[in-house]
């Protein structure tokens, strides 16, 4: 888990307050669920290194506050995100209705290649569902988003959603759609400034 990664992808998580953004992040980075997660103040952040196509990729994830009063603040963090997870709560229809506004922000403030994933969270409470999978699916399709339902509580699909987004980003790099070296890509190619050790050659004569 050292610095041995080739890329860094910047993610943002957006969506109404209480939809479980912070819980998703925690589930992804710590494999833990927090029952009484306090409202996020401003923006918090977490990282985790994943592996895609034998490449180590570090996800640098910015978890924003959903409360309206932080909206102005959180908007400053969209810049240069390679992936955006847009979360709503499947048991609260209201949070689904607000997606349009979140999506507008995401489109306006990120770049055209930013992968936006729609996440319907709290899948463990499916019996209290107020938004059907089909309806959300249609919304995602109409807006060109990937869609997935998750539960930050059980962890179902949490890992998948983060990794699938990263896979899409990686495919864009591979296919040349996305230039990882460009500024707004939200990707950083890590380099090592210090030449590799000459240990072999050295230890050869010391024995």
């Amino acid at each position, binding site marked *: 888990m*050292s610095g041995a990664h080739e890329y*860094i992808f910047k993610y943002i998580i957006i969506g109404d307050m209480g939809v479980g953004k912070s819980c998703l992040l925690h589930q992804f980075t710590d494999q833990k669920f927090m029952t009484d997660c306090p409202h996020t103040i*401003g923006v918090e952040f977490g990282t985790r290194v994943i592996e895609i196509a034998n490449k180590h990729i570090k996800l640098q994830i910015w978890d924003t506050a959903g409360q309206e009063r932080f909206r102005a603040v959180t908007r400053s963090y969209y810049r240069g995100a390679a992936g955006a997870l847009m979360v709503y709560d499947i048991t609260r229809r209201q949070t689904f209705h607000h997606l349009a506004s979140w999506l507008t922000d995401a489109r306006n*403030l990120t770049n055209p290649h930013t992968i936006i994933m729609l996440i319907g969270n709290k899948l463990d409470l499916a019996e209290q569902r107020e938004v059907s999978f089909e309806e959300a699916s249609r919304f995602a399709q109409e807006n060109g988003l990937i869609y997935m339902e998750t539960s930050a509580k059980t962890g179902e699909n949490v890992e998948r959603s983060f990794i699938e987004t990263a896979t899409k980003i990686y495919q864009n790099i591979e296919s040349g759609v996305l230039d990882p070296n460009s*500024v*707004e890509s939200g990707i*950083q190619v*890590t380099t090592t400034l*210090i030449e590799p050790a000459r*240990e072999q050659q050295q230890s050869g004569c010391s024995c």
Partner: protein
Amino acid sequence: MVNQRNQRPLLTLDTKQKINENGGGSSPSTTAPQNSIITRKVHQVVSISSSLAENDSLRNALQYLGTFYGENTVDERRNLRGVLESKTLDTHKELLREFTKVNERLELLDNVVGDLSKACSLIDEQMRQHESVTKSFLVQYNNTQQKLSDSQHRQKLISTFLTQFQLTDAERDALLYHPITQTFFRTLNKVHDIKNACTDMLRTHQQKSGLEIMEEMSGYQDTAYERLSRWTQEKCRLLSSDVYQDSYADEHDEHLYGHLLVEQELKNALNALSGRPVLLRCCLKEIVSARKTALVSKFFDALHGGRRRPIEMAAHDPVRYIGDILAWIHQSAASERELVDSLLSNDESEPGTPTSSSSSSLQSYSFGVLDETFQVLNAHLKDKIDQILNGERVDMIVYFRLGHLMELYRFTIGKLLGMNSSLPCYLSELRSMVDHCFYDVLQKQQVVVSLTLNLKPPNDMVDLMHKLTDILNTLNQSMVPQESREQEFSNIISAVVDPILSNLSSTITSQENISDMYVFIVNCHALLHNTLSPYDFATKKSEVVMAETDKIMEQFISFQSDQLLTNVGIKQILDLIKNNQKPLSAVDGLKPEQMSLFMQSLYVHLFSTSTLLLSPQQQCDKISSTRLKVYSKNRITTALSDAYAQVYACIQDLENQYDNAKEIAFRTPQQVKILLE
């Protein structure tokens, strides 16, 4: 005896045949004597034949006999003994000859053995002589052997000692001359261990060599640490190299700096150097200066760089602009922290990492490094703030929002860099600067609240209240804790609301237009109250305003009621009633005919809704609050109907001796009340 045996088998065969041929046919009684001989013979033969089978020598003898014994004739049988004896004789002669030869040889041998024996005793003699000589050599040999094994043992000890207390040539070279690699760190570790071992040695009788080795090792260490420090400083300088990358690549930049793969050796180097705080600090200084360079370059790149959306694009919107800058700093702080943490951490599992005890102390430097690094942004941040403060006049709400933005980021960035580190502290300094501007402007917002024609709050005040609403919204949404929010609120109130309140209460001094004054004040209060009441931190203040309003309302109502009762003349009647004795019909001014006239004119007023009655109503209508409007109207009507009820009761009172009471006051108070409502 040999002969006998040789003959018998021939007979035996015949006899056997005979027995078989005869079978049981011959009678036993007639052949009895013959039979017994035969039986004996048979037994003999059988025993011989059986012994023949077992006895090899007998068989050999018989075979030998077969070589010269021809036909089995009587002559032959008679001569057999002679033949055998002559053969035996020949054999003996032969033996004799041979033994004579043997004897000769033995005599010869005896001579030789005698010679040998003589020689042997000679040798023996000589041996005995030599042994005494050799004995001393043997002793010498044994001694030498012992010494050899002792030496070997010592050699082993010494070589063990040397490997444990000295460096090999290769190690020394790695430590002092070769480029820095894992071997260097291993050797440095070894030197450290040797020194430790020497400390143990000082407790034994080997103090002198302990001290010598220790000195030698210290020498190595000093040189090695010097070298390592120079090497590390060089490597640390490279940590700013993304600057160069920027200079040639417009489109190729991005935050490479935050994510350098920190070479294990640099980590090891810093870890090793934590044993030499002075040298370590030099290296940390290099890191700080390198990261400062990198950070500033990135900062300007984010502001102006080849981005699609450089932050500078928002410069026209100060809150957004500063917000973007602070968000950028926050994100950089996160990256920078990761870099510094990975530099100043010790992976214990890695080989060649010196003294693990140093790792925790190494980590303790990371806050300091970050703190110093981010200090470089303070001045730039101040520039940006100054730019706003000295630029075109901005709305005071901008100052207020900026202040709260800084408070939010003081907290957010403080979580990464440490609350007491320089940048967060500087943010709170900047905040007080901005707050200062805010209160400066706020204080200048003073409006002179003077009576308006429509009795509504003056436009200046309405504007100010809009601004106040903006401010209170920002305050309400800010993340500052409740008590500091209340503090801030009370500052704002004393700057804005309190002057208005005192201004208002001072306007009531003149008696001119007093009724308008009351309405105006009530209306201004209502505006204040409406502005404050939505915020829970303003509850107390809005209650104060409310109480003040109630007081003014009471004054207004009593003034209006008084006016009304005076205008319709009922007040004077009530005064006379109060001040005189019964029967009142005798009192001048309350005489039945006077009362009758008064009541008639009162009824006209009441039923024709004259201006006398309407004017207080109209005054009430100028109250903007519907609740207060209705309330005041009700109170005034009630005052009138109450007064009427008193006069009516007085007329109806028999003791007052109005004869035609029913005619003077023919409307019941109830009727009047309904009418007024």
